[in-house]
């Protein structure tokens, strides 16, 4: 198994005569992630590919870690379904600017590090040391602030409407706005009847 010249062959756990090829499709890590987004189940199934790797090194980043065919032993059907989830979160990776009304500077946060709206709320609270944002995200009516985001089309949207995966795919920046600035825009409290 090639390792691109890292010279780790000696420490590599190999079974088979020198020179025998491992018989599996080899694709790089990034290639696997790029092709696994969406429908092609075939590619995703064989996705966890051997790139060799020293299995004993604990400190390596996940990308460089050993990826062996069929390991961990999660059946391909389940792998495919969790692959879909991984691909949506990875696409939304990246830092977005977050502004809060009344705060003279902006912050940046990594959407990919949050697992859902709850985590986001908590992270936003921490970012600005203000315990109201999370509440605003969950049940809007009683709170001083609303959380809005700019989507791919350039429109400003109320955060929390769409599923998390869809949200992080389209969110370009976040703004925590005073509710008083938003009145007059017909913002209904979430869950109320029309």
């Amino acid at each position: 198994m090639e390792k691109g010249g890292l010279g780790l062959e000696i420490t590599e756990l190999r079974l088979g005569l020198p020179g025998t090829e491992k018989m599996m499709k080899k694709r790089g890590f990034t290639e696997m992630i790029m092709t696994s987004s969406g429908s092609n189940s075939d590619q995703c199934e064989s996705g966890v590919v051997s790139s060799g790797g020293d299995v004993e090194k604990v400190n390596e980043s996940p990308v460089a870690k050993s990826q062996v065919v069929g390991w961990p032993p999660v059946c391909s059907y389940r792998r495919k379904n969790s692959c879909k989830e991984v691909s949506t979160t990875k696409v939304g990776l990246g830092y977005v600017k977050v502004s809060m009304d009344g705060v003279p500077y902006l912050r940046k946060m990594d959407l990919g590090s949050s697992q859902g709206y709850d985590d986001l709320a908590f992270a936003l609270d921490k970012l600005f040391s203000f315990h109201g944002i999370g509440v605003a995200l969950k049940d809007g009516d009683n709170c001083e602030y609303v959380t809005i985001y700019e989507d791919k089309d350039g429109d400003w949207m109320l955060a929390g409407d769409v599923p998390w995966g869809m949200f992080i795919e389209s969110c370009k920046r976040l703004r925590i706005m005073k509710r008083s600035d938003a009145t007059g825009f017909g913002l209904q409290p979430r869950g109320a009847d029309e």
Partner: protein
Amino acid sequence: MNYFPDEVIEHVFDFVTSHKDRHSISLVCKSWFKIERYSRQNVFIGNCYAINPERLLRRFPCFKSLTLKGKPHFADFNLVPHGWGGFVQPWIEALARSRVGLEELRLKRMVVTDESLELLSRSFVNFKSLVLVSCEGFSTDGLASIASNCRHLQDLDLQENEIDDHRGQWLSCFPETYTSLVTLNFACLEGETNLVALERLVARSPNLRSLKLNRAVPLDALARLMACAPQIVDLGVGSYEDEQDSESCLKLQAAIRKCTSLRSLSGFLEAAPHCLSAFHPVCHNLTSLNLSYAAEIHGSHLIKLIEHCKKLQRIGDKGLEVVASTCKELQELRVFPTDLQGGGNTAVTEDGLVAISAGCPKLHSILYFCQQMTNAALITVAKNCPNFIRFRLCILEPHKPDHVTSQPLDEGFGAIVQACKNLKRLSVSGLLTDQVFLYIGMYATELEMLSIAFAGDTDKGMLYVLNGCKKMRKLEIRDSPFGDAALLADVNKYETMRSLWMSSCEVTLGGCKRLARKAPWLNVEIINENDNNRMEENGYEGRQKVDKLYLYRTVVGTRVDAPPFVWIL
């Protein structure tokens, strides 16, 4: 018993249903063998290549239910190339030609085609139940045949199959007069569903007990379906995003409240977490909860849901301490990794496992993926739960030792096999030496299935297992240093086992050939994706390591449907 007429004996035999017991009965005497033969209703064939349809029909001419398994277990993890085998077509053809009144067919890891399904649907008038698990090769056209032609169908249960979804109208192929549906599971279908047809089908199925939907069934449709089927016991929710439509939400809540028989919940394939609360009113009745596909449900929502589930017996999820404190009736638990690249999932460690073992005394089956483990934790788990029947532990990183002491995990697993006297299935992982196999051979007297990966030092390891575990049926080994000496030590052992799988081990072609010569009643298959001929051509023939070996006992000799990359010695 010999003074009773045959009909009486047969009636007594009707109460004996387990395959093992029926087999024991058949061995008592010729008379019992004959009576048992003709009265056997359910046949289980664990390896479709161990026998053929003709011999099956000769022995059991009157059976009604057949279970067939095809590919080896490691096919689930992409270790068996496409096209290896496990075709159901010859079986269905043979059964169709005979007079057998087939009512139930259960297939696992087999290749099923639309042609097979069409033939099945036309050949057996009383056909009632089709269960396909981890199968592939067919499309929704095949399902359309089943729907159209099986007048008395009760169960259509599709679990984790690869189905080519032609987005057709298979659901509307159930005739309007058809009202006998009991189980419908199409969660694994990818495409759009004809919701109108589905609603009408559910509305005219008063016996419907189990309904598992796929992604494409949204919230408002779910509300209508549940309103039609308040008698439902087992529900798999599909898509669950649109909480904004408050009218649908209210309707759903009203419908759910009426489902007082609901005991099992799964799915939530695309779920906005806020919606889970709609199910809280029925949680206290749930005995089974499977959220393993609910990728978007995290933390607090999960915990709230579980807190309501006091009667839970079967669960697959991520919130362990809550489970431990709430679910005292828990019997089965599965914890899957959220991040398969091994980067995340830091929340699942040995602490979770210990908490579960302490909190859930009835636990007997566990599948647990985690980042790290210690001997101390395993010893504690063994003390807390001596009733394990299935214990499968997967530490994500191969060869990882006890993270506190840096020792191998031999003692930990040793404690498990020593304490759990009824252990039937075991999967080991982490850093392990031959010692763990000594323990397994010594103590795991009831063990039937053992999965080994990246473990052991020498052939002694495998020998301990082969010599010690008298009830071993399936042994599967990958990436471990066991070779010819272990493979050949006791050839007759393989006659007592269903199968042996060894991949990326030290077994050589010469060794396999010797085995095949010594044991003609075994099929010894070498699976070599790249080049089967290369092995013979170059001079290292005898010493060439075999990448994948799969051997199994059979009474019907070499199979005829092997693809070119499978070499049967």
